[in-house]
């Protein structure tokens, strides 16, 4: 029973990581940059949703949509102002800029919302209390159920989007070969903007889900989940959508199991240790493509 509880907790945490990792992976795939500000977009999404419900009295779903809209705009603005001027100058320069953006978002949030943590009201609080099974031996929260379902839904939608739609195909083309895509008449700039928009909208969803399950909301809320999700994206093979999903869920499960069965002190060590071992065996992640350098 404890095992099942832990498994469900792990799946739920992993699903949040998976959604964040999806955003990471898409942005990486198309712009080959590690967007360290992604975690902070999550935080902004959660704050917007919090403001929507707490200050404006909006229904939960409206505030989520609002958060997605704001984050989408934020993603496009960040890409346009901070990353676009550095496109094609090597990933390190953009990496540092992304860190600058991350500092900026955290400190801006600090000024706007203060450092006192806010308690996020779960968007599923209207569903009533959690599901109790086996005479209360096993409790499953609605957050856990929905987080997992939403993560799967998002993955399916994203896979369909990238394989079926024109925009999605354009994204894949750009991530494959930026220059060739341009020659084929694809508007690379708008495609990359679109990717950031989608990634940021996903981040907003992830922020809401994250804070629904773990309700303390502060300006640094997104930082650690951001790093974990980045780990998850690499774990699954960065650039691969199913890989991000798999990596996210595995990292979540390993983290919770490590904490429950091995050592709470070293749970991060276990997560990162597993990552290292996997990468040594499979240097491009679980579902990553093997890259062969042409000579």
């Amino acid at each position, binding site marked *: 029973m404890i095992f099942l509880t832990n498994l469900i907790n792990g799946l739920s*945490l992993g699903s949040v990581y998976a959604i964040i990792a999806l955003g990471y992976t898409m942005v990486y795939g198309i712009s080959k940059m590690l967007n360290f500000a992604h975690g902070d977009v999550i935080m902004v999404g959660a704050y917007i949703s919090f403001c929507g419900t707490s200050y404006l009295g909006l229904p939960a779903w409206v505030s989520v949509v609002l958060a997605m809209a704001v984050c989408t705009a934020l993603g496009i603005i960040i890409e346009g102002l901070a990353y676009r001027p550095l496109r094609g100058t090597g990933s390190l320069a953009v990496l540092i800029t992304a860190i600058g953006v991350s500092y900026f978002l955290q400190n801006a949030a600090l000024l706007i919302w203060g450092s006192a943590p806010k*308690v996020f009201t779960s968007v599923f609080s209207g569903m009533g209390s959690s599901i109790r099974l086996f005479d209360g031996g096993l409790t499953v929260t609605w957050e856990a159920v929905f987080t997992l379902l939403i993560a799967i839904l998002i993955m399916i939608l994203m896979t369909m989007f990238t394989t079926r739609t024109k925009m999605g195909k354009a994204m894949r083309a750009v991530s494959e070969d930026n220059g060739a895509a341009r020659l084929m008449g694809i508007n690379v700039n708008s495609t990359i903007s679109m990717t950031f928009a989608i990634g940021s909208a996903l981040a907003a969803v992830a922020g809401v889900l994250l804070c629904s399950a773990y*309700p303390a909301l502060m300006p640094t809320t997104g*930082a650690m989940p951001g790093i974990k999700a980045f780990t998850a994206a690499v774990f699954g093979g960065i650039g691969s959508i199913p890989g991000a999903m798999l990596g996210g869920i595995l990292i979540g499960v390993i983290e919770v199991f490590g904490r*429950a069965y091995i050592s709470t002190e070293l749970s991060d060590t276990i997560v990162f240790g597993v990552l290292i071992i996997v990468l040594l065996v499979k240097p491009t992640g679980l579902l990553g493509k093997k890259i062969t350098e042409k000579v």
Partner: protein
Amino acid sequence: MKKEFMKKFAVVMLSLVMVFAMAACGGSSGGSSDSGSESAEAVLYVGATGPLTGGASFYGNAVKQGAMIAAEEINASETEFRIEFRMEDDEADGEKAVNAYHVLQDWGVQVVLGSVTTGSCVAVAGETFEDRVFEITPSASSSDVTNGKDNVFQVCFTDPNQGKTAANTILELYPDAKVAAIYNNSDPYSTGIFNAFKAEMEANGKELVEAATYPDDTNADYSAQLTACKSAGADVVLLPIYYTPASVILKQAADMGYEPTFFGLDGLDGILDMEGFDTSLAEGVMLMTPFNPWSDDAKVAEFVKKYQDAYGELPNQFAADGYDTMYVIYETFKAAGCTTDMSNEEICDAMVAAITGGFSYDGVTGEGMTWSTDGTVSKDPVVVVIKDGQYQDR
């Protein structure tokens, strides 16, 4: 080639010199602007460091606001000198705290109030000990703060002290309960209390059924720890942690239908003021805190009212600590017979002698506080229980 190289070299060197010069002048000009007023009237420069930005700025700002109310009260009263209070940001980081302390030095600090957080305070205390500056911290509770430093004092309880008292309280209230603890193993405050708590419990022949830890990140998942406590059958769970993770723990416990008695310490104070927090989750939580804003005590009520008028919110324990600390500095300074034109070292020695020599202070965080030579405070802990979204005496 050579000429151009020399040119480049010169440009680099010049810019470097300018950076240093700017930094040097920037510091000194800040100091001189304030020192001019000294001739007009006697001013005591009280400097503080604490987190004013970053994740812990909540605590720093609370201390700052509390201390400012005290300073205003003092300055409004009939005194021979005015208190000039300045707080510099240290982001709760030891390195930044030392930087902040040096900025205060340039400003002409005479007595240090702080630092707010333990890590910063230990770092600053190392400096003030060498510089012979009197330091008293409102809220840095680790025993490392005062260890081996005769010039550093605490207004709050030390961590081991709290852990010990918590253990005794629990043993007294729940002699037969199975006791567990969830603590942050990368936080000195949390670990300090836990270690003392565990030692005291074991000294009384009681083993903890579970001691779950979590690493230092803000939005972690505590379900594994709660599951462990639950399956160990713990009835009392000690939470020697800050209120942010505690709020998540309370929620997750409620979600999984686990309802032990949670026993928190002063770090939990503030949980009721969290925006959006469902206070019903905290019903029945026991809390050991020196400050109860709902108390009937006249002094407390007056402070709470002033604080609310000034900042529009209820003061928490950190604000109260800041308020008391400022008064302790003021009273000790007077008791020691110091004047503002004395050197820092003279002030320090006189104040140390005064505070340990039978000085007693009644503040909002405790009556009859006295200090021993090791720097720790002696005052009575108060255990309250949360009921109807308020602290109530047990």
